[in-house]
């Protein structure tokens, strides 16, 4: 029965599990004091890999990412995320490493002793060319024993470039126990290398702006058998009662997401990908409210209403939001000028458009390209795109390529 096999095969989807290990009993950090962000920032730089080229490639980027320190590697879009602490004048870094385009992962443990730059770094003296950042990594949950030595080479020259994590944290890259467009993944975005996020906003039946990408519910995004078909068929109460995101989280509202951005991250850009004209007016109100909140907190936070279709642009104009809201327009440069958008966001499949991007810059606008996920496609945009930002599912990959190139 030919058909029998075909239809059974339809059921077969690959399991993309990934294990992120942790140190038992909290590791050495259990007894450590936390490092301040500016102390972590002292380690920012481009490093040559002395020991560990098989694992990390020839150079790596080390960068403070919120309260964590991350290492972005040239090999397999690798990522190391450290929580940082100090015991006396020794600096302790513990966390995990993994290849964001693969399933390999393991424990990572680095240390800077008091004598070996620990004291000077705590005093605010930046590392010199002779500084070596050393540690060990392991496979999965096994005790880390593979020696890694990183030799400081140069500082990171430009951190203003915007690296936006797709759907809050990246889709395939960040296969942790946090769903896309969830509050949890937003909190992790910085450690992946992002300094901005893109999140999807659509309305419920009763008009509540929620974070959800697809037009329809499906087991790809939610658990909840009675959530079938269009999201807009269900009230907010029904959605929160009947289904959860894939890792058990509640479907968040836009307000909840922006609260997390403001209070639990240092992200500087939020791209609201507006999925329905019916949610524009409300999203604009919330955008205004949270920009004011950020301002009152002394935070620099750009929130853009992302408009991807002619229909959305028409509603944006109809709602008379041109002068009040900051828009990000994915259509032509003429559309961008027409609605006085602050950001032009062409799809990468149009290729690098450096002349247009330069023109946008001269008009005081930014250019973000979406959604770039492959190294060979990313490079032409980084080297000659005149871009201000890249939206990606692999923030670690873009972070490595951008900081290493510049």
């Amino acid at each position, binding site marked *: *029965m*030919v058909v029998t*096999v075909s*239809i059974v095969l339809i059921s077969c989807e690959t399991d993309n599990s990934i294990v992120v290990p942790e140190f038992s009993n909290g590791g050495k950090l259990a007894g450590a004091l936390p490092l301040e962000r500016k102390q972590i920032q002292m380690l920012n730089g481009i490093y040559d890999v002395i020991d560990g080229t098989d694992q990390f490639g020839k150079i790596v980027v080390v960068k403070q990412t919120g309260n964590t320190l991350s290492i972005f590697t040239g090999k397999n879009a690798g990522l190391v995320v450290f929580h940082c602490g100090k015991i006396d004048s020794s600096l302790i870094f513990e966390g995990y490493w993994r290849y964001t385009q693969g399933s390999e992962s393991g424990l990572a443990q680095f240390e800077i002793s008091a004598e070996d730059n620990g004291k000077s770094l705590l005093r605010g003296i930046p590392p010199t060319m002779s500084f070596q950042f050393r540690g060990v990594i392991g496979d999965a949950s096994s005790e880390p024993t593979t020696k890694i030595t990183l030799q400081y080479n140069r500082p990171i020259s430009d951190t203003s470039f915007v690296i936006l994590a797709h759907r809050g944290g990246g889709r395939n890259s960040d296969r942790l126990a946090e769903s896309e467009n969830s509050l949890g993944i937003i909190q992790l975005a910085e450690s992946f290398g992002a300094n901005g996020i893109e999140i999807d906003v659509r309305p419920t039946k009763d008009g509540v702006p929620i974070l959800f990408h697809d037009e329809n519910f*499906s087991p790809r995004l939610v658990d909840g*058998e009675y959530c*079938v078909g269009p999201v807009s068929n*269900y009230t907010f109460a029904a959605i929160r009662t009947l289904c959860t995101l894939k890792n058990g989280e509640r479907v968040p509202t836009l307000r909840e997401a922006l609260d997390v951005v403001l209070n639990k991250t240092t992200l500087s850009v939020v791209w609201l990908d507006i999925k329905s004209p019916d949610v524009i007016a409300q999203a604009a109100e919330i955008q205004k409210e949270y920009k004011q909140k950020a301002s009152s907190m002394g935070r620099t936070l750009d929130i853009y209403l992302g408009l991807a279709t002619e229909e959305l642009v028409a509603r944006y104009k109809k709602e008379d939001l041109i002068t009040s809201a900051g828009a990000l327009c994915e259509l032509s440069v003429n559309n961008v000028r027409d609605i006085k958008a602050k950001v032009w966001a062409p799809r990468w499949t149009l290729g690098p458009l450096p002349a247009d991007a330069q023109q946008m810059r001269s008009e005081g606008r930014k250019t973000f390209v979406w959604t770039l996920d492959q190294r060979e496609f990313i490079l032409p945009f980084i080297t000659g795109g005149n871009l201000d930002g890249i939206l990606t599912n692999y923030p670690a990959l873009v972070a490595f390529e951008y900081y290493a190139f510049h």
Partner: protein
Amino acid sequence: MEYSQTIRRLSPLNIMLSIKQTYFIIVSIFCSLVVFAQEQDTVPTSFRLVAELGSGYSYKLNEPKTTLGIYTRDGIAGTVRLKWGSSNLLGIGVETGWIPVSSTKNSALLSEFGTMNVSASLSAVPVLAVFSIQRMGIQLHAGLGYYRMNSTVTIAGSTMQSSEWNLGYILSLGYARPLFSNYGLGAEVKWNNIVEQQVSIISFQIRLICRLFGD
């Protein structure tokens, strides 16, 4: 946000087949085809159009991930099938019907919105292309197509209805005996899998078969 020991599965309920299992199935199917074909070898080719009506008990196989209250996952399903039957190896047809998938109710559900009266139900209407082989009154059916999923939800007095087409398939094993002239009676065990909703239903149905045309 602490890092922790975590495993995320993108498709937790999917049937996972290894490549070895897949090739085992392929070889098995190949052998089945050969065996059935050899049995049919001496039978002269003839064609017929057959209508089938079936009804019986159905049961949803998947456990719900969470329950809101009283949960029911069985009911009475119905089937209508039109088949271009043949004494030849392969018969082709279409199938539809109605399958009650599940329902739930709770008159006092505690939630972030207070205490609510909640009820919900899910049903499916298959529209499938089916293929069959038969021998000595035993029929194997396999079908591929879409299921119209219908959800009805009432929460705090507000009722919502929503529908969607989802890809799926059916496998069934049936037996039939001729009653008189163009009619027959039989039974069938059916396994409906609505792949895109990750829902599987088994049903046991009595079937009435009517030959509309042919030998």
